[in-house]
């Protein structure tokens, strides 16, 4: 699964933060998964729970997962809008799953039809919080 690489990056980021902050263990990591990339939370967690074993101090880290609705700002007319991921054709949905930026080849601003907009929320994966003990 391609998700593996992203789970792995979360584990590595948590290990790096642990080192930087001088933590002994990381008790929890909160990640936010965006609607655009649409990573399956179960798969993500499964991978993480396997990967964390190879990082000292992360063996018992709990992965908390939140999801975020996608939001777009039109660069042309300023409109804010959302989208309905379930309406994408399968192949398009897959492309966006791998490369979220390709989303912009398939959707347009509902107000002015521009293809030039910013993904202001819900793009991919980010870490919201890392909790640990010194």
């Amino acid at each position, binding site marked *: *699964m391609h998700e593996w690489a992203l789970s792995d*990056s979360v584990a590595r980021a948590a290990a790096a933060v642990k080192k930087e902050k001088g933590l002994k263990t990381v008790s929890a990591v909160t*990640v936010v998964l965006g609607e655009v990339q649409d990573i399956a939370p179960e798969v993500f967690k499964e991978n993480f729970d396997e990967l964390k074993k190879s990082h000292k101090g992360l063996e018992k880290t709990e992965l908390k997962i939140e999801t975020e609705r996608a939001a777009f700002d039109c660069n042309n007319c300023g409109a804010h809008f959302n989208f309905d991921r379930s309406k994408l054709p399968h192949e398009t949905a897959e492309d966006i799953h791998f*490369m979220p930026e390709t989303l*912009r080849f398939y959707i347009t601003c509902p107000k002015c039809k521009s293809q030039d907009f910013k993904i202001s929320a819900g793009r991919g994966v*980010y*870490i*919201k919080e890392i909790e640990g003990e010194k």
Partner: protein
Amino acid sequence: MNLDPRTFAISDRIKNIKKIYAVTGFKGGVGKSTAACLLALALSAKGVKTGLLDLDFSGSSCHVILGVTPGMKSLFPSEIQGLTPPEVAGIKFMSLAYFTQNRAAHLRGEDVTNSIIELLAVTNWGNLDALILDMPPGISDAALDIMRLMPKAEMIAVVTSSILSQNLAVKALEFCKNSGVKTLGIIHNFTRGGCETGEIFAEFKCLAKLPYDKNFEASIGDIEALKRTDVYAAVQPAFENLL
């Protein structure tokens, strides 16, 4: 906290790649993609484990030169610990074109950065002797991101005899030097005789001189035909300085 985890994975993803060469030239149309593809083909033909990454998202050309049709139903990376690029003539080939369904890639700089980070974070290159990067023109987001995310990448600058190309390349190579980026050397393209780069590039090695070959265009998309061109033959001397 709003931390992008992806950049933490990049050094791991490229740790088994011995050498990274960014084929650039700063000016458009000087033959960067041509040189990148022919170099990759030539390396691979010699048994060197080679990767090729097309980073000119809005001008993706490598798949056209190599004659492959990127897409889920034709040629696509496999999902093995990330995305493992398919092989083309033995080259592990990665491109945004797999995911664009042949549409124009209208990406702003921020998107380019995000796409580069995504590709670097999820691509599973495995062991490579050499990874060739086909760069877009300019010193834009892509060039700046490669400098910061792949600091071991060395520049190969493709230049022509035109003052327009040479002017830009000299300034850009100066910028690279000031940024601590190593330049392996120059490939002179569209030559019609001796090494015409002259004084202006005196401090850089001339890796190869590629003649203008009027039959080259007809070979695009056919790997065996590409390997019979004068340009392919002329790329060979570059090896002395690679790897």
